[in-house]
């Protein structure tokens, strides 16, 4: 792949092949979702903590509304 192609991610392979050999995919799959679980989990946890903080410390102190 030329330097440019690597920058765009283009390749001359047909649509149903992407040049990833099954062996390395196999070894990668042994630990894959741990990193994603950690990243997504922290992000969602932060969001929830942020929501609760805004609810309790910004919204409720401004007075009951109904």
């Amino acid at each position: 792949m030329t330097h440019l192609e690597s920058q765009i991610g283009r390749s001359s392979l047909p649509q149903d092949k992407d040049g990833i050999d099954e062996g390395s995919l196999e070894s990668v799959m042994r630990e894959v979702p741990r990193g994603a679980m950690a990243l997504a989990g922290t992000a969602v946890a932060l969001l929830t903590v942020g929501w609760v903080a805004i609810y309790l410390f910004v919204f409720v102190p401004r007075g009951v509304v109904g």
Partner: protein
Amino acid sequence: MAESADAQERHILATELRWSAMVAVLVAAILSVVVYTAISVGINPPSNVERIDPKSLHLTGEFAEHNLGTSVAADGAITARMVATQFAFVPRCIALPSGKPVTLRFASPDVVHGLLITGTNVNTMVVPGYIAQVHTVFTQTGDLLMPCHEYCGLGHSEMWAVVQVVPEKEFKPASDGRASCEKR
């Protein structure tokens, strides 16, 4: 020994299900906080399906000009009535106590308006055809800004009122139960 493809696929679905369960717990947690405050202190979005004809609003008693502003009923209930019309709130200033439950009632004779009081949770749309009603307890005092926050025509940017929130003990309605802003 490489897992068989099916076992790996099941593992992926199991991970996704575990993540979905975590997400469901978070959603339930957020909902439970909302339900708890709704049940314990009565926090709702302001709703009041009370119909009134905008075309003859100025012919009614409650929203007649001299009845607008803050009034304290015999049983001590504090209600502020205002009309949101193109391009002013009537009256332009209302006085209310902090720390006590108050009710604000709005109506529009012409188009859709809306309002918020800066720094408080008072917020509502004023839709012609309905009386908008907000129950609250002010937790801060001072001259707060109450702008019209819904586009209502070319004068929308100039449509704002002032809410003078005074400490409870300084809130002294006149003999007829009416209270109005002091000129500052």
